């Protein structure tokens, strides 16, 4: 954990030296939620899937994505030329590297999350009904899923350098099908059965279980809710070892090609 914290502290110190960027990222987060809030109040309607209104539904969706996106963004900065070579020469283990790389962006997003939440509740009257146990469990499962995706993304980025097709595909699929800004059942209004695609995406389950636990006071003792959590957990359990395998593949591929230090 000391190594993870060392990487986090390094990223935090670096972030703090770019004062303009630090200020604009804080302002950007707050203005972003205002923009989403204004949109949501304009088209406000009920969202029966989660027994809530659209403002609450959208704001929670935006907040989840602002918690998740930094995980993959954090990786991009670290797979820069030769950084990886220097880090690997310390004998650091892969999970420590990934965790150390993503922790600061994650902490920053959590810090930004809180004022955004306040803006959402106070100015846009988002109503939350949180079940603490479900929420903690949802966070653990979601973090595992996103962490796994971040590892896969890193592996491909080590090989492909500038961008990776996997995270690009997942990001595109997520924006279309995972239901960040609309309930996935809405897809069926255009193409019957289209929402089925959504449930094959791990991100859909991230949004779903976090919304269940924050909008509906959903208890995991409820069988229907438990099934949702169980499916999300299966995604997490399958994705995590797969991510390790893919990461190792990516690293060895770059070592074989002699392109570890390339960019």
């Amino acid at each position, binding site marked *: 954990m*000391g*190594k993870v914290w*060392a*990487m986090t*502290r*390094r990223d935090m*110190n*670096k972030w703090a*030296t*770019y004062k303009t960027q630090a200020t604009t990222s804080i302002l950007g987060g707050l203005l972003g939620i205002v923009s989403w809030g204004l949109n949501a109040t304009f088209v406000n309607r009920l969202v029966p899937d989660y027994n809530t209104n659209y403002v609450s539904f959208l704001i929670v969706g935006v907040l989840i994505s602002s918690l998740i996106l930094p995980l993959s963004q954090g990786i991009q900065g670290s797979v820069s*030329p*030769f*950084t*990886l*070579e*220097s*880090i*690997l*020469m*310390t*004998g*650091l*283990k892969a999970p420590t590297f990934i965790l150390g790389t993503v922790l600061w962006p994650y902490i920053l997003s959590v810090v930004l999350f809180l004022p955004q939440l306040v803006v959402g509740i106070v100015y846009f009257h988002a109503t939350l009904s949180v079940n603490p146990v479900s929420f903690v469990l949802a966070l653990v499962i979601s973090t595992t899923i996103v962490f796994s995706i971040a590892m896969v993304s890193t592996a491909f980025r080590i090989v492909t350098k500038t961008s990776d097709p996997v995270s690009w595909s997942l990001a595109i699929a997520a924006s279309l099908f995972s239901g960040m800004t609309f309930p996935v059942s809405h897809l069926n209004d255009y193409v019957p059965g289209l929402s089925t695609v959504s449930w094959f995406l791990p991100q859909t389950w991230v949004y779903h279980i976090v919304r269940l636990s924050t909008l509906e006071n959903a208890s995991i003792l409820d069988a229907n809710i438990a099934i949702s959590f169980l499916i999300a957990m299966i995604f997490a359990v399958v994705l995590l070892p797969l991510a390790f395998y893919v990461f190792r593949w990516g690293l*060895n591929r770059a*070592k*074989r*090609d*002699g392109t*570890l*230090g390339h960019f």
Partner: protein
Amino acid sequence: MVDEPMAIQLLDLRKTYKVFRNLREGSGATVSFVNFFRILFGLGGQRTVALDSVSFSVKKGEVFGLLGPNGAGKTTMLKILSTLVLPDSGKAYVEGIDVTRRPRETVKRLQSVFAESQGFERRLTGRENLEFFATLLGLPKKQAKARIDELLTFTGMTDRADVMFQRYSTGMARRLLVCRALLSNASVLLFDEPTAALDPIAAADFRKLIRHDLADKEGKTILLATHNLWEAEQICDRIAVVRKGRILAVGTPEEIKKNVSDRVNLSLIVLNYSPQAAKTVTEAILAVRGVLGIEILEDRDHEGSTRLNIEGVKGLNYNVIFQKLSSLNLEVTSLESSQPSLEDAFLKLNLEAAA
């Protein structure tokens, strides 16, 4: 008899790389879709040989130089030993540890200084960067602090330790790289072109640091890659001459020079030379028995005079050369005869390999 322990061993190491291709390859001016998909999925294509059955050993405490032109495969050898590149076949050991099978064990014993591969955070100070790497190397905080102070003093960096890395000169950055390489007290150190891009004073300091401080005082085993012949001769105990991924010769600088011990170099300063006579002079001297080559240079130290560098076999009859020059109205004002240098040996080995 007990075998002398080896710090580094390379056994029949082979490495090829894919040749970078472009979309127009093999199809003239038009973009080939077949090529596009081949490149995208890394299929087929030519490979270039970076290392071809390379084998050598470095003894503990030795300073060993890999001497070769750019593209000879020196950096590939260092990167394989540093666990950053995987070989196609063959074995590489660091203090008996197989580097491909046990990379984490390897980097506990070996650290590298790649000039281009700094990996330092530019917005942090030198000290903060070292503290970061010390934590990653698993050094306890108190021990790390003491070690960093010691290394900063050792490399003469104490005064600049708390300055942002982005303000460092090339020489200071190189010294910080050495500090990082020494953090874990690794016994084997690799240097890739250690004095490239350094000014002459910084380069001389750095050579002293490698030879005197790291090798002689600290007893480190050092493997360095360089194309600087003088540097190799000055600081290396032994040298391997490398060309196109092959080892051409291994030995002490003196042993390497023995490859051309049957040669002699003659340097003459002559007066009355005119450039129009270049062909005549060259032909006349090359006609002398035992002369292998001649080079005609303007002598910048003496106005109006010209320097003739003549290479010949041992036992070359100088009198015949003087007679030839005299017959061409060239007056010899000075003569220097020298034994072949490492450069001569290096060139001879490369020419033979090319042939």
